[in-house]
């Protein structure tokens, strides 16, 4: 998770995952290049990039900088999904509608796998996107509702650190906690 490519000169690969946006918006919209930990470069509209508090303060600290902004803690896969979320959010900034926004957020979450959600959380945290972090934290909490203890452990990759004696006690104490849950 902490692996990073510190040296920006190493990269040559440029990806444009957001071509459809590039064509439908004004040519004049300023783009910003953001480079992920696995050396992918994303060309992102300035308005979207400014949703990332970390990137925003990068430019505030060095306004004249035109270089590619390195995001050493951000892998490409979750980052592309984070961009997807922020593009939607911007629409609601211009036209606030809480009901629609909630609907859009829950649509966004619904399409994601468990792995997607857990991978996006550190990215949203690093980029300081508070709305997304709230949505993800809640989504993760909702995903484990009505699930078994085993399911929750494998969801997060948590090791069972109870001794077998302690487990036996827990089972006795919560005999019913192993019933009434959805199948894994």
């Amino acid at each position, binding site marked *: *998770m902490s692996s990073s490519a510190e040296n920006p000169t190493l990269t040559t690969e440029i990806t444009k995952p957001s071509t459809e946006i590039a064509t439908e918006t004004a040519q004049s919209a300023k783009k910003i290049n953001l480079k992920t930990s696995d050396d992918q470069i994303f060309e992102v509209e300035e308005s979207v990039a400014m949703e990332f508090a970390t990137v925003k303060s990068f430019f505030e600290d060095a306004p004249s900088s035109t270089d590619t902004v390195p995001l050493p803690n951000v892998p490409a896969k979750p980052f592309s999904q984070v961009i997807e979320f922020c593009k939607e959010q911007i629409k609601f900034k211009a036209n606030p509608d809480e009901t629609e926004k909630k609907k859009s957020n829950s649509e966004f979450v619904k399409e994601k796998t468990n792995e997607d959600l*857990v991978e996006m*959380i*550190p990215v949203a*945290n690093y980029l300081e996107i508070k709305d997304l*972090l709230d949505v993800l*934290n*809640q989504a*993760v*909490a*909702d995903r*484990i*509702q*009505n*699930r*078994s*203890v085993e399911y*929750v*452990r494998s969801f*997060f*990759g*948590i*090791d*069972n*650190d*109870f001794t077998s004696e302690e487990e036996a006690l*827990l089972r006795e*104490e*919560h005999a*019913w*906690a192993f019933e009434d*849950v959805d199948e894994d």
Partner: protein
Amino acid sequence: MAELIPGLPEEIAFECLVRLHYTTHRVASQVCKRWRLILQSKDFYYQRKEGGFTHKAACLIQAVLGQTGSSQTKPAGPLKYGVSIFDSVSGSWDRIDPVPVYPDGLPLFCQVTSSEGKLVLLGGWDPVKYEPLSQVFVYEFTTRRWKRGKEMPENRSFFAAGELNGQIIISGGHDENKNALRTAWVYDVTRDEWAELPQMSQERDECEGVVIGSEFWVVSGYRTDSQGGFEGSAESIELGASKWNRVDDAWKVSQEQCPRSSLGVGRDGHLFSWAESVSEVKVGTCGVQLGERTFLSGSDYEGRPQGFFLVNGQNGKWEKLEVADDFCGFVQSGCSVEI
């Protein structure tokens, strides 16, 4: 120390746990040792409350209707009571497992109140022998278990009870000889200790307790020598205060009326009777305030089926609740609990 959630910073992992629905707590507390410690901590409860992740639920002492398939004849004994939970956010109903020593029904007329997301049952009468009890039971939603608390220091029935800052206050009622009481005690649920409070200005049998701001109010009731002559006065106390503040004419109702379970508090703090305000619940009224709204149950005439409602204030908008047969029984009393 093991990470709370592998790959996530501690504070973020904590934010995920705080957002767990309370029904997930019993499973989550068995995932690993750290989760268990956190989920059972007081701090966790207050973090959930502060973040707005707790649910305001009405916890009701409700008659459990007979099992279908048993004989059609009416039960010879009195109604059996259980604890029902109505979650006003999700609209769901649930019934809590019975107290282990009372598998066939709660002590009659027991008091229920809550403390920091736990339920506290106090006193009542033995359902078989009709003897007054001083027992205290505490229900933990995290583990879904009842545990026994320290018994009430005096024998007491039909008293007022409520929570201030997690501490349970009991006051008034009557002793085993039907003498009305003016004594009051406070119970620290976490430390499992009782301490005596100053005495009220007068005896108050069959009084009702309610918390308004930082004060615990004891409303109406009657003295030993005026059985059933409900008083118009009330008195209040704050934790740590050395005396009660008495207010005459606080309980202004058209006739001398018992305040138990039907007491409502208006936005400006005035006291009123739900039985008098809403004709649909004028018989067997029970009102439980849940934030802005109040859960109401009762019927319009003696012997008619129970109706269940959510109302916004004394004269506000209201909504009739559709309730499954299991939860249609008479509600004797209730309290709000934030779980």
